């Protein structure tokens, strides 16, 4: 397999931008009409995903370990979409046809054989991971919405019963699909530690124009059955440490940290936790009463409400600024979640104040779809 030639032909194809994934999906659907139902109505995001995955694969082709890990995740992740082993052959055919089309006269039997081999490898790693995953987990979990509580103008808390019981580590999230928005998945963090009855809570913030969030915020969502993907995410409590903990939550970024508080509460001797909970206005501090109740009974927990502007029950200002007003964080273990910008700013400020990078744990919702 001539890797250099594969790469240069890919670069040639890539020059055509969005035309490439557009051609690929049209080719696929024409040859295999039954695959259309695996995708959402609008394919805009889908095309970007394909390009992203292809770029990742081609650019990490020299780092076999990374590539294999990426492909295994991809294979597992595709189970919830309903991807089956036979789809892989169809995708391979259309991918090759697309590359051939855009390579023009540079395409020959040798290059075709190389791409065929490369794709066979990719498909093999992905399907193997999917098969292995099948032994342990369903393709998706069913989540019946059993409760909805409006906490603020644009924030509600959903109570969802999972079937079979969803296993996860506090701080992780799952992709959620609503029946009224088929094939659109958005990531949400569980806001409680796993419970024996399989009940999980999601904090839903209404995002203007956000297809999934708008469906989840509506009253009609109660009683519906959501589809949940497997738990993912790297944000989780390092329970081997006894260091004091700093938590910074912007709006519904509170959810994963709330699950960790739940977990800490179940520990015999939780370390002291300082939680900064911020929102644009005091209205947006949708979980403050609950947090205050918790801190009143749990002496290890200190909650500082932060409001960006206007009257505040605690501090006023932007979260990164307010957190920096306090000192002595360098020896803490920090967990941050919320809007990307707020998380990045806070992380940078903590690092500048002497906190080691390894002690700053971040959940970035930037990769999440609307």
């Amino acid at each position, binding site marked *: 397999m001539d890797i250099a030639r594969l790469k240069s032909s*890919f670069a040639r194809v890539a020059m055509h931008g969005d035309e490439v994934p557009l051609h690929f999906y049209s080719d696929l659907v024409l040859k295999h009409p039954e695959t259309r139902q695996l995708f959402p109505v609008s394919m805009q995001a889908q095309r970007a995903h394909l390009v992203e995955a292809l770029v990742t694969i081609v650019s990490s082709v020299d780092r076999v370990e990374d590539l294999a890990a990426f492909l295994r995740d991809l294979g597992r992740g595709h189970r919830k979409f309903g991807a089956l082993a036979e789809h892989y052959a169809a995708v391979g055919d259309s991918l090759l046809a697309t590359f051939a089309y855009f390579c023009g*006269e540079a395409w020959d039997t040798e290059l075709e054989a190389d791409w065929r081999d490369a794709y066979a490898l990719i498909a093999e790693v992905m399907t193997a991971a999917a098969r292995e995953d099948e032994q342990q987990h369903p393709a998706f979990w069913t989540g019946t919405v059993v409760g909805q509580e409006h906490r603020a*103008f644009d924030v509600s808390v959903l109570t969802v019963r999972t079937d079979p019981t969803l296993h996860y580590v506090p701080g992780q999230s799952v992709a959620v699909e609503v029946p009224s928005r088929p094939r659109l998945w958005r990531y949400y963090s569980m806001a409680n530690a796993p419970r024996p009855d399989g009940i999980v809570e999601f904090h839903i913030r209404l995002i*203007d124009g956000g297809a999934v969030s*708008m469906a989840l915020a*509506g009253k009609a969502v109660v009683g519906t059955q959501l589809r949940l993907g497997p738990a993912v995410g790297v944000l989780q409590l390092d329970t081997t440490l006894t260091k004091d903990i700093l938590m910074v939550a912007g709006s519904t970024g509170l959810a994963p940290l709330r699950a960790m508080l739940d977990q800490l509460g179940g520990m015999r001797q939780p370390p002291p936790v300082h939680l900064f909970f911020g929102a644009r206005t005091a209205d947006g501090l949708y979980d403050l009463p609950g947090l205050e109740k918790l801190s009143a009974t749990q002496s290890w927990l200190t909650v500082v409400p932060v409001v960006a502007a206007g009257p505040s029950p605690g501090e006023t200002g932007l979260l990164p600024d307010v957190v920096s007003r306090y000192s002595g964080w360098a020896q803490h273990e920090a967990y941050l979640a919320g809007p990307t910008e707020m998380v990045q700013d806070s992380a940078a400020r903590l690092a500048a104040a002497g906190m080691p990078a390894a002690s700053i744990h971040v959940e970035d919702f930037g990769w999440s779809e609307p």
Partner: protein
Amino acid sequence: MTSDAWYEEQRRLTPDNLETITFPLTRWGRHGYEEEPVRAFLAEVQAEMLRLVNERASLWQEVQRLRRRVLGKENGNDAVLFGKDDAHVHAVRILSSAQRTADRYVADAQAYSGRLTEEARSRRDEIMIQAHQHADLLLEEARTKARAAAVAAIDGDSLAPQTDHERRAARAEIAYLRTFTEVYRKHLKIYTEDVLRTIEDWEARERSEAREVPDG
């Protein structure tokens, strides 16, 4: 040369960029462009760009088709107007353009529902501000009345009601003022609750309307 070209391609300005771009608002008291004409112009540029992009794509495909035809001739094949793959490529093109249309419909619907909730948000803020102002007004009025009542009471004290009749009248006056305060407080509470309910209704209605916007 790896996937750099793709990144380059992704960085280029696309019609979608023009549709979704936002600019920071000018600070108060400074001059900035009026939003609507800028948006209208951007929409025009976006439409034009989309036309150009589509034109470019179909031209490129035409080039490919002609190239295949020429190659076919060179290889001694009987050159026909449509090569054997042309029908399929043509079908792919039609389907691609249909998909683009569907994407645009969904994007429009989503933008529309986004605007609806945005409006709901600002409407709600307006109502809240008005309610606060009204509440402040009512409070101020009540305070003025209370102050007047207190002054009257002190004045009454200094005059020291002489007779039982006058004392009884003063007591009645105080009882009246107390009731008045009670009523006013209740009135204020009902009013506030009513405003909150209106907001909730409005919010619910807005949501159900937003839900009716089809996906595409």
